[in-house]
């Protein structure tokens, strides 16, 4: 089933249990086409589990995920094809997922990957690997990309550059859902936010909507007030 116009992903009542532990409890939210949505939550709030359920990696116990476009889930803390060079891995992803011509070069330029192309993925630093992984996600050319902790391991300058790169891909029509535990990073790049804590959604909206609802002036304060 497809969500309504303007909505490219709708999550309704998503529940996931690990034995007796309820990791996600009736999570519901929507993603609008062309936006950058930040999924904000502390460590252990269920962000990765939510992404894995939406991305089809984990089976749902209850609820529904409706998407009107193919999505790609980019996991955190992985180092795929460690013995291959970044350049070959990007060639592979572009070829395997059928990326349009020119996208590979655009992604390499946007994420400043040119100096890393001949390095093996297994030998990259955490920040370099994160950029290479983001390139993988963007190269799949799926209209909707879910990236788990895209700024984890990046320094301040890299975070700003990557945030700008992600925004430029969003302007070109990609929809991005980013799981972020650093609230300042989220405020820098996202159009709207979903606040997740203890496996439940505590708030959803733009920065002004959330601060108004929490009677605060910053996203950080709104998050603390609502969770």
């Amino acid at each position, binding site marked *: 089933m497809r969500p309504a116009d303007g909505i490219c992903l709708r999550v309704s009542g998503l529940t996931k249990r690990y034995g007796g532990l309820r990791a996600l409890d009736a999570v519901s939210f929507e993603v609008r086409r062309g936006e950058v949505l930040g999924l904000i939550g502390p460590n252990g709030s269920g962000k990765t589990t939510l992404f894995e359920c939406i*991305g*089809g*990696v*984990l*089976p749902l116990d209850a609820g529904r995920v409706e998407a009107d476009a193919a999505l*790609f*889930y*980019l*996991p955190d*803390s*992985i*180092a*795929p*094809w*460690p*013995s*291959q*060079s970044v*350049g*070959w891995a990007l060639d*592979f*992803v572009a*070829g*395997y*997922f*059928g990326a349009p011509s020119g996208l590979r070069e655009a992604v390499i330029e946007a994420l400043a990957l040119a100096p890393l192309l*001949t*390095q*093996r993925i297994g030998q990259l630093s955490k920040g370099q690997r994160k950029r290479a992984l983001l390139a*993988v996600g963007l190269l*799949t050319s799926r209209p909707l990309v879910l990236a788990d902790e895209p700024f984890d391991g990046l320094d301040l300058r890299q975070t700003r550059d990557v945030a700008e790169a992600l925004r430029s891909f969003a302007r070109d029509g990609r929809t991005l859902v980013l799981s972020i535990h650093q609230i300042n990073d989220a405020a820098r790049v996202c159009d709207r936010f979903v606040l997740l804590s203890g496996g439940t959604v505590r708030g959803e909206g733009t920065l002004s909507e959330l601060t108004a609802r929490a009677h605060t002036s910053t996203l950080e304060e709104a998050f603390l007030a609502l969770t």
Partner: protein
Amino acid sequence: MRSRKWLLAKEWRELMASRAWWLMLLAIGPLVGVSFISAVTAYGELSGVNGTAAGVGEAFSPLIGIWAPTFSACELAAAFLLPFVGIRLVAGDRQSGALKIELQHPLSSMTRLSIKAAVLMAGWLIATIAPAIGVALWAGYGGSIYAPELLTVIAGHLLNAGLTIALAATAAAVTEHPATAAIVTLTVTVGTWLINFAAAVSGGWWERAAAFTPTAMVAEFQRGLWRADLTLVAISLIVAGLALAAIWLRIGDAVRRRLRRSAIVMGLLALAIAGAAMVTASWDASESRRNSFPEAAEAALQSIKGDLRIEAHFAPEDPRRSDLEHGGFRKLRRALPRVRIDYVSATSVGLFEQTADRYGEIWYELDGRKLTSRVTTAEGVLESVFTLAGIGAPPESDEDVFRGHPLAVTPRGAGVLFYGVWPVSVAALAFFMLRRK
């Protein structure tokens, strides 16, 4: 199609980057070398002493004297080295997280696994260059090569490698860690040896099951016998293994769903094995016809219309039973697929049954006529059956006797090739390929 090509290219690069594969390649040369050199030495020594004569011709069959021992190194590598290469290639994707990326492509999990298995088989074929060098050396020494029997031996080892790859893939898919997968794979291998052991001690159903273990299958092919039932069972096991691996590697499936699908695969496998076990077709590819009676005798046997029933009173561990089975009954089953042969004994060793009535007797029955014999040779079995059927034994022809191919040579150059050139070449190639980006 484009995605498949990219996946194939990726799997190939992953194999080339696999230290496990290069180590297997490095080890298989000297392993084959030891087997080949000792086989040629023994063959040469025997050939140089007395030459050959009718009746001992089989001693000078390259199938038994050269190919079986040389290729036995492949069996060792398939049991102890190839599983680690397979596990590395399958489990590596899960460990690195590549699986979570690749499985988001609509390509089916089974297609992915099949591409991986094809690359692993290609890797195995490269490893079999080592025994191929043995074949080339043998030809260079002036040795006889009978292509059908050599191809049969190679086919047996390819099927065995396929089984190992499927087993390794299943173990790597079902378990979370490569070390656990390695233990599972070796446990299954040891388990098949236990079945063989139980068959030798207990006979009966164990014996039937043991006929389908990889060791028994390879042994049949090494005798130059291409059996349709073994081939079909091996192919069924390979397909089922890959299907199970595909089920357990899929992302997003609940365990219950995976178990349900696995049960369906196992059910289909059981049906396939049961069906394959009923197929009796086989092809004796050996030049010496070591798995067949003489052609004239086979033609005479096929003229028997009634149902032949045989009851052999031997314990499983009685060496006469082994003589009878391998010398006469195996050939009889091929010539007369309708024959029913049962072994009867009260104990496994037969030591304390020797004095019992009937022990050591072979009862033949055809259309109500009965005959008892104690002869366990192939000739004795034939004579009993012909007597019972009232058919005169066809005259033996000198042309039917396999004279063998004696060759009094030493394995010159083999040591340098297998112990020197092979390891150095593989190490140099590995150094180059592992540095490639």
